[in-house]
């Protein structure tokens, strides 16, 4: 009905956080790594704003495509109030229930997967930086 609104709202928040972080972050930490294939390479630590950008991309992309699906099913309409379920009280209640259950779960799952990606990339980063520090 309107579940995509919850991840879309989260996308707005993550984009604002990303922009704020980008302003406050300095130059990323860079180290030189020696590898057998590429010789001496400069490796930069991934700024946290870039990691939040991944979350924003998933949330914007996912909610955008879901919004298209809702247009397809006639749940999003081009006239006020733009959501067909918002027209009467019973449908409105059902819509809010769906947003609170399906919508919130969507946001939680996407954020959970993103946290997993951040954990894996952070571990990979640490490994590379430790190897560089040893040399």
């Amino acid at each position, binding site marked *: 009905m309107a579940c995509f609104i919850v991840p879309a709202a989260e996308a707005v928040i993550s984009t604002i956080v990303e922009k704020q972080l980008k302003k406050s972050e300095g130059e990323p930490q860079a180290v030189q790594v020696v590898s057998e294939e590429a010789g001496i390479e400069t490796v930069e630590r991934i700024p946290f704003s870039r990691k939040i950008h991944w979350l924003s991309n998933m949330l914007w992309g996912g909610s955008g495509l*879901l919004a*298209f699906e809702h247009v397809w099913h006639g749940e999003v309409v081009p006239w006020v109030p733009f959501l067909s379920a918002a027209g009467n009280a019973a449908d409105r209640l059902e819509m809010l229930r769906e947003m609170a259950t399906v919508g919130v779960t969507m946001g939680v799952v996407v954020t959970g997967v993103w946290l997993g990606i951040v954990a894996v990339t952070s571990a990979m980063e640490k490994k590379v930086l430790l190897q560089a520090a040893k040399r």
Partner: protein
Amino acid sequence: MTLLTTIFAAIISTVIWYKNAPESQMMVGVLCWMYWGASLMWMVDAVYEYIELHMAYFQPSPADMLNDFYLGLSVVAVGLVIWLVILLIKDPKGVVKAALFKKKN
């Protein structure tokens, strides 16, 4: 079918991204995030539907399947259009800029 179509689009775009990485001039990463985000959201939707319908979820009528597949292909097309617009606006290869501001002899 919509979920399946989007998952396949996400897998294909990720393979293309991996093949060309670390080069990212075509910005295929944008497509990957978009399709994976949508796939995760539809997966949640599918779980809720399964809880409601149980086994009937896996036995859709051929008409429903066709309609969902049609929707899935449309979703993939919309995703490609969004990606193309972002690519042309950001223009990482400078192709659009070069074509627009090319000096005539």
